């Protein structure tokens, strides 16, 4: 049940996903070289503002039924859909990643009129990098699990999804000690800086063929 922090996460540049998030459609969207260069410059600037960090925690399942999962540390999660996803899992992983406050501050200032074009590009860059950072953490966990003959569920769940209420954000947030990564949780259970994601996944065994 060791909580693991990643102070610096390095991910492959998700350039295709950034363009796709901005609405680029291969073969349809037409961008001339000058505009393309401008966009690339914005993306380069955005990259310098990112501060990708994250953490994860493995928790053994103590007890579970079709709607409730009891984990170590007296954690109780209620959700039929989550329980279904975790039906073959003996352990659960909480994981979280953030793009940091710097880029979110820039997005906020730019989108108020200073440079809205920059804001939408920074926003897409931050979102995609945060998702990529969470994906990176999942890969890291899998590389550790492989040696134990275990594997992470391919699906993940976030608070606020289906019947897994947003209130659960608090449990995950506190378990992951996201405060140490500079992340706050508002009274409405929203993560600040807003380019922060958290998720729950299960751990299962790799069986003999």
């Amino acid at each position, binding site marked *: 049940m060791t909580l693991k922090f990643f102070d610096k996460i390095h991910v492959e540049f998700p350039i295709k996903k950034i363009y796709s998030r901005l609405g680029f459609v291969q073969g349809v969207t037409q961008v001339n070289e000058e505009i393309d260069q401008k966009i690339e410059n914005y993306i380069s600037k955005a990259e310098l503002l990112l501060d990708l960090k994250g953490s994860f925690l493995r928790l053994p399942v103590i007890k579970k039924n079709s709607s409730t999962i009891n984990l170590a540390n007296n954690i109780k999660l209620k959700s039929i859909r989550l329980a279904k996803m975790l039906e073959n899992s003996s352990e659960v992983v909480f994981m979280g990643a953030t793009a940091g406050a710097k880029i979110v501050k820039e997005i906020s200032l730019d989108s108020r009129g200073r440079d809205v074009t920059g804001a939408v590009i920074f926003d897409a860059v931050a979102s995609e990098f945060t998702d990529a950072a969470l994906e990176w953490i999942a890969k890291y966990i899998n590389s550790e699990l492989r*040696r134990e003959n275990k594997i992470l569920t391919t699906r993940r769940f976030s608070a606020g999804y289906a019947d897994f209420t947003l209130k659960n954000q608090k449990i995950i947030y506190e378990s992951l000690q996201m405060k140490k990564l500079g992340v706050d949780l508002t009274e409405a259970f*929203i993560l600040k800086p807003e380019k922060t994601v958290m998720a729950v996944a299960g751990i299962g065994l790799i069986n003999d063929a």
Partner: protein
Amino acid sequence: MMHKNMESMNNIFKKRVVILDGATGTQLQKLGMPQGVCPEKWCLENPQLIQKVHAEYSKSGADIIYSATFGANRIKLKQYGISDVKSINKQLARYAKKAVKDKCFVAGDIGPTGKFIEPFGSLGFEDAVNIFKEQVKGLLEGGVDIFVIETMMDIQEARAALIAVREISDKFTIVTLTYEKNGLTLNGTDPISALITLQSLGANAVGCNCSSGPLQMLNLIKKIKPYAKIPIVAKPNAGMPKLINGKTVFNMPAEEFGKIGKKLVSCGVNFLGGCCGTAPEHIFALKKQLAGLKPVLPLRDAISAVSSATAHVMLEGKSLPLVKVGECINPTGKKELQKQLKAGKLALVRTLAKQQADKGAKLLDVNVGVSNIDEKKTIVKVISCLAQITRLPLVIDSSKIEAVEQALRIYPGRALINSISAEKHKLKKLLPLAVKYGAMFILLPLTEQEVPKTFKRRKQIILKIFKTAKQYGCKKADVVVDGLILTVSSNPRAAIETMKTIRWAAGNFRVNTICGLSNISFGMPQRALLNATFRRILRKEGLSMVIDNPLHPLSRYNRYAEGVLLAKDKNSAEYVKYCKKLEGYPKINEKNTEKIKEDNPAKKVYNAILEGSREDIAVYVRHAIKKQIDPEKLVRESMIPAINHVGFLYEKKEYFLPQLIASAEAMKSAFFVLAPYLKQEKEKKVKQAVVVLATVKGDIHDIGKNIVALMLKNYGFKVIDLGKDVSSSKIIKAAKKYKAALIGLSALMTTTMVNMQEVIARAKKENLGCGFMVGGAVVNKSFANSIEAEYASNGVEAVRLAQKFITRGK
């Protein structure tokens, strides 16, 4: 009885494929090792069982078995409360030796610590080296024959482990990294860069293990083989895990594994075994399939290439494009950079690195030499920063030997040293460092006593330095000869002697060559002309690399400049005359001239909006006003049709979001210029329609709402933007105060979108008589309908909806 030393291992792999063992963990689990225990401790407590696993692999045909010490480092063992690292490694190595009874080699297995090493993580580099040294010492005491560093996902951790081995032992050492589906390690290192880095650092065999099955490894092996001067290793899983009947399994049968093993060997694998999911039968199948098969030996004995953690640059061959080394990270003559470096700030370093990469630099020269600075500390800091933000390999440029050493030690790639001259102390200290860390180096042909003016003398010095370097084990591929450029203004033959040096070094001596171009033109007018012309001349002579400023625009070849460089223009008279003529012309800014040359300024304004030229549009609008174009007509007939067309292109997806927003911002800039002229017009008109915009209570996401605000303003709406996390009462109050025709609400969360309903209910209760428009990531049309609002999925739709409301209202 086999000989267990490096020499014998080198002989074996030349004759046949060396077979490695298979998975240990799964075998131990089959023998009863429970989940969640410390495997190393369990092996110590059950020596007969781990010895059984080793013996089975040996019996199946493995030439090398790995000791059960994968996680036997201080950090991993600490998680189980174990601190006696040395003794646990020693004992487990002994069990392995005892199990195989000299029938095969025992490799001391070193796995990752689970921490990332600086500059990619928080574990100090020297701490990591010491952690691995502790393990290496224990394994040596246990009598291992060779070392294997495996399943590394961080190139820096692999380097730390390899340095730890190399500083204690010269035993044969294998290093394998684990690559994800995208062909990169988790930290983004590609297999070629890893190979270049690790083989130059002293690994005896490099390759990959775990993560993928043998089929997936084929491509990876094909990629790296051409760059390897050492044998290649593969230790794949038994296929990829598959979900069968609700269970995840590795299901590649041993026979199939063996057959694909044959393909791996034909692609160049020299050491082959199995990882997760493999068992002794897989190793037996390999042995059977590979019997009598001739291995493909390394295809080269040296390589001219440098690498970073995530990329590499090949420096071989004259036909390659000239490799540009960016020189801007050098504080000489740069006050701001000096100031920042002294203050320990790296913002400018980061920017310069990015800018140079964008302008085509392939390598970055790093020099932090400022008076009264701790150069050793500063260069480590700068290199750690650059290793994270740029993929470009680095050139370590320092006159301080200890700074070069520290930089090479922590740099997570193969660096280029700038430079090693014939100065005795440099030769004596820098050459061993270059060899230890596997760096390439720039050979600078000068001595303590002289800066040689002639090619003849330079050649003598080059040969002398190389002779010494060769004694340390350097090859020509490790060297880049500097053509030594002196200034043509003080020595008219300076360029010719450099040309001769480059011609000989590239053509006869057959090494890579480099020049710091800008020296040639020092003290001359129009330096860019001379530099560009000399660059072209030297390229013809075989120059392969150039150090210059990629941020300066490249000038063109010039025949007057050539006259100076080839010493045909006496006292540079013709060139100076030509330059004076050039200086006599007024400066031409082509773009500006073209801007006002256009006869149809309204069309220019239209195009500027279409192209999102926020910077240019103000010039065009002012020009239109100067040409007496009616401002209102300009808006009506050029700007509105332009932004409408942008919206049309956006909806057809021919434009994407940045283009839509850039156009909207260009429109906004145009309005800013037009504002004083439109004021008089506005007074005559009816009042603008008001839209109140807000992100609802509890929600802090507002970029979508800000885009809608920008778009609406461009269409002449008066927008009251209340910001984010706004209570319903504040929204109602504003709608009343400004007599809003429309309330626009945004939400990004399912939990906050319910607050939209509250606003609408209250507005209706108070009979505000306005329309409602909602949007945001989680909102859709059916939700909007359910709360009696209209739905806008983007800024363009929001404008259309707002226009519809106003028309309906009228």
